[in-house]
């Protein structure tokens, strides 16, 4: 197996992708992507707009299923199980592989109900007391409990942008997923809220496998342990974040991260 496919060293392999191709109609958006994503660490996907990084992220919990002319080929395994196998229920898969989006998108419900929604539909709590416990635990892990504990009935949309994003992270954690996918989780936030989310992500990696797409290379450098660089639908380079940012091996990676025209 090559360096590009595995990266070097680290935790156990959580997600393993081989020869993934994605087509949107006639557009071959992602070519031959093979990558092993490790557990209990943050993996960042970077690359210019349209490089396929978000497309690949969305393959990992079958969010692309919702796009009509999208075709995904290849092999993607979560703990060795093919997530595109016919018997896999995408809704169940998404409880195991949670997602946080670019713009905070709380449901138009109370803070409590935002977090309780997932556990309710997946029947994770036997009674009100158990649900209360899940909600509190999730809000604590989302680093927002202290700010909302006295107003759990207030609408989620009444919070600030950064708080809303942490609420969405708490909501994603509430179903006890194994993997958290984050698609530009800070791009709509100010620097302070961004720093709080980054601090939270660093906490979350103790329990989860975190995969994030970011346009901010400095953010990838700050929060991730491994970085994958995508360019024109291909995975160009994948490795330890420190190495990617001090001495990348591919000239295309070098051009992109140093802000040169690639």
């Amino acid at each position, binding site marked *: 197996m090559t360096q590009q496919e595995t990266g070097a060293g680290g935790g156990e392999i959580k997600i393993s992708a081989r020869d993934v191709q994605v087509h949107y109609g006639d557009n071959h958006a992602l070519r031959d992507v093979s990558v092993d994503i490790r557990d209990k660490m943050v993996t960042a996907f970077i690359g210019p707009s349209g490089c396929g990084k978000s497309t690949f992220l969305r393959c990992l919990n079958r969010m692309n299923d919702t796009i009509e002319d999208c075709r995904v080929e290849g092999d993607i395994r979560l703990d060795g199980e093919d997530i595109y196998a016919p018997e896999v229920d995408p809704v169940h898969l998404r409880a195991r592989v949670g997602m946080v989006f670019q713009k905070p998108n709380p449901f138009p419900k109370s803070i409590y109900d935002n977090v309780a929604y997932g556990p309710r539909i997946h029947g994770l709590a036997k009674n009100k007391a158990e649900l209360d416990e899940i909600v509190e635990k999730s809000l604590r892990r989302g680093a927002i409990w202290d700010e909302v504990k006295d107003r759990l009935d207030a609408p989620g949309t009444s919070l600030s942008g950064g708080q809303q994003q942490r609420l969405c992270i708490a909501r994603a954690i509430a179903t006890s997923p194994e993997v958290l996918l984050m698609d530009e989780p800070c791009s709509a936030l100010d620097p302070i809220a961004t720093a709080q989310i980054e601090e939270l992500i660093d906490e979350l990696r103790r329990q989860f496998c975190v995969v994030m797409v970011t346009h901010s290379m*400095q953010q990838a450098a700050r929060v991730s342990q491994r970085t994958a660089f995508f360019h024109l639908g291909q995975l160009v380079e994948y490795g330890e974040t420190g190495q990617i*940012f001090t001495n990348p091996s591919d000239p295309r990676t070098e051009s992109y991260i140093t802000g040169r*025209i690639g």
Partner: protein
Amino acid sequence: MQEQQHHIATAFDRDLEKIQALIMKMGGLVEVAIQQAARSLEERDVELAEKVRAADREIDALEEQINQEAARVIAIRAPTASDLRTVLSVMKIAANLERCGDYAKNLAKRTSVLVQAPPVGGTARSVRRLAQEVERMLKDVLDAFVRRDVELAEEVRLRDQEVDQMYNALFREFLTHMMEDPRNITPCMHLHFIAKNIERTGDHITNIAEQVIYMVTGEIPDEARPKGDRTPYAGSEEVRG
């Protein structure tokens, strides 16, 4: 040699070019300092020695300026990859050049003392030859820096061995003079410090060569470089024999 593309932010290119130009300026001043200090010694020119001592202030000020510019680039541009390595290398190269400047200044200081005694054989001439060799190494390593030429940097790095050997020969020459006539001891002690400092200058130039290699390739050369300095083991036979 690798071709450098331009940054999308052209001001970033200008910042990096500016720092590199400052290194070339500083290196040029150090070259002149070594050359003039060695000449002042051989020609017993106190006025020239005085000039070298005064010029060191400008070298020190340039190091300060390079460090400030580098800190500014780190703060504002957050450089990565080869840009980051350039900024890191430039700071280390400036520190090494500053030491070389100090050694040249020290040579000039000792010249002022040495002219008060008669010359010791052809030693001043030999010291100047050593200085000329080191000065050529400096010129080449600066070329390697500005052209990002790893091969040339590697060649400079290996050439330090010759400097070590020339220094060994000088060491013996001084010993001989001191044993022949105790009145030579004072000037030979000064001359030996001078030679040792020039030899150390060669080591700093070797460090610069290694920084150039790191800047271009991302790797510090690790294999031990051949050492030619045998003086730590020399002397005992001569004294006893």
